């Protein structure tokens, strides 16, 4: 693995971590972020490792816990932060908010607030690419709790029947809100569950960005070889509550400590960088400092950005028609 790649991953993971911590603070103490806020802290290796493995043009779609994916695909933190503050400069123009961030220039189709709602959409992207005959794949993310809704079943079955080029990335962070996976899913092992669609699945250490990257690379290769839909079950953990305000009474401190203190994906990567790749600590410290600045800059940018102009309220209810509907 190239050193610059590792540092790039490191940069993005730290960026996500610091960015999310800052959001938490802004929400709780500065009141500049409103609505629901679902943080990605702890799961950084998943978004970063999977998205690092994609080729340009591969589609990305996810649920409401989407800041990590937005930053990982390369959305500028300024625009992500501005979106959170409902500013006109936000990735979604301030109309989407935390749960609904997208950037079409990065074939990042957004976060979606309805549990499972993104799954058939992602399946549709895969259908479109197969139809067009390209070799673009789709990465469709969801939480393990979202595998119990009808959307999951109908989508994976359709992908199975039509052999669509898609990877369903299940981010198994053990809880859907306060409900532990085995209380909500009769089959708590996701890669077993997807056998119902004859979809091959692999359980991956979602705290290890290398493992995530490798597994995704291979799954993407299988997809492009025409082997049809794939599933990756990323074993991961969110350190914070489901959303800001959740006091996480449903889990023990010990459990949290186990993940955070022993498996933290950033620390793991950091050790790998220094010990295996001989990267100087100073280089990593520099990145950390750079990230702090990027995050502060994003807050500044967002704070200073204007709210959407009231006159835009009615824009884009329907998309702007490209080819006019008159006849030539």
């Amino acid at each position, binding site marked *: 693995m190239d050193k610059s790649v590792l540092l790039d991953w490191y940069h993005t993971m730290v960026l996500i971590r610091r960015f999310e911590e800052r959001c938490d603070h802004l929400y709780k103490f500065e009141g500049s972020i409103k609505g629901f806020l679902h943080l990605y802290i702890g799961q950084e290796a998943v978004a970063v490792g999977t998205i690092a493995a994609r080729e340009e043009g591969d589609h990305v779609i996810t649920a409401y816990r989407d800041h990590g994916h937005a930053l990982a695909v390369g959305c500028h933190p300024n625009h992500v932060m501005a979106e959170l503050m409902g500013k006109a400069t936000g990735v979604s123009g301030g109309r989407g908010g935390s749960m609904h961030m997208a950037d079409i220039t990065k074939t990042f189709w957004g976060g979606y607030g309805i549990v499972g709602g993104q799954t058939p959409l992602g399946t549709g992207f895969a259908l479109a690419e197969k139809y067009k005959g390209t070799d673009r794949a789709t990465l469709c993310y969801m939480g393990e709790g979202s595998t119990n809704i009808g959307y999951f079943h109908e989508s994976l079955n359709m992908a199975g029947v039509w052999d669509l080029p898609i990877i369903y990335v299940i981010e198994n962070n053990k809880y859907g809100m306060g409900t532990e996976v085995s209380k909500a899913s009769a089959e708590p092992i996701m890669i077993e569950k997807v056998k119902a669609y004859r979809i091959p699945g692999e359980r991956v250490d979602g705290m290890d960005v290398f493992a995530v990257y490798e597994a995704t690379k291979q799954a993407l290769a299988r997809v492009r070889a025409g082997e049809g839909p794939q599933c990756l079950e990323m074993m991961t953990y969110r350190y914070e509550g489901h959303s800001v305000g959740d006091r996480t009474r449903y889990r023990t401190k010990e459990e949290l400590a186990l993940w955070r203190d022993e498996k933290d994906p950033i620390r793991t990567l950091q050790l790998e960088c220094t010990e295996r790749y001989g990267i100087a600590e100073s280089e990593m410290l520099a990145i950390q400092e750079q990230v702090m600045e990027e995050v502060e800059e994003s807050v500044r940018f967002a704070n200073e950005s204007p709210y959407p102009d009231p006159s835009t309220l009615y824009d*884009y209810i329907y998309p702007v028609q490209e080819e006019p509907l008159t006849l030539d």
Partner: protein
Amino acid sequence: MGKPISYREAITNALAEEMRRDDRVFIMGEEVADWGGTYAVTKGFLEEFGPRRVRDTPIAEMAIAGAATGAAMAGLRPVAEFMTINFAFVGYDQIVNHAAKVSYMFNGMFKCPVVFRCPGGGGKQLGATHSHTPDIVFAHYPGLKVVCPSTPYDAKGMMKHAIRDDGPVLFIEPVPIYTTPKLKEEVPEEDYIVPFASHVKREGDACTVITYGEGWLTCKQAADELAKEGINIEIVDLRSLQPLELTAAIESFKKTNRAVVVEFGHGHYGVGSEVIAQLQEKAFDYIDSPILRVAQDQVPPPYSGALEKMALPDVPKVIAAVKETL
């Protein structure tokens, strides 16, 4: 102009012509390929266009709605058929909370040129689960266009519009008029488009009757009857329920000072409710008598034929309502 065609043929022809014209257009739905569509709308399509473009799906309305929407976002122009509009309830969230929202919520970044075809309507003794005309539960939301043609000419031109529209369109086709001989008409050979806008379909002066979809035929028959008595009603066909654009209706009403709204769905929170609310607001000085509604009774459709008919609009009910306004 060729030979007269039915409402259903008009839709079939529009679909086929658009598919020939644009490779991005394809059909997906239950039994649309091998079977040729439950109501035979896509008969012969599999043979002409092949399995890539005419796709049978599993029975999975959530995925049909969602995957069609996704494919539209990613650059295609899917026409997703719900076998009947009743089954679209299963995909309701995907239609009204995803397809209808992506353009606005993502600040115009995405287009979403999906067409949801919904054969609908009651009166066929299919019982309460299968007899809905629930058009307003889709038309309530901004972001989704909800249209319903009333004649073969409109059906063809509006379907072409729907397919070429860059936003999501829910296209309602009342099954009861699919093959009605009285409705058959010649349509142009050349490509044409019918706008999603209301217009006067029959001129008159006694009373404005506002309707759409299968209501047109009923109102036309009522108009013929009434004409024998010297009562000439003006009929406005809405064509589009969302956006709802009432200029033609308001103009007509200002002339006749009387109105009746005729719809085949339930009356409560129905099309008539909205039309009346706007008429009395925008043409208050012209109301000479209460604006009346003829709609499906507020009762789930019973299976038994006579009972079911009782609850639906028909020519005598329209005639009675018109006379009441005079």
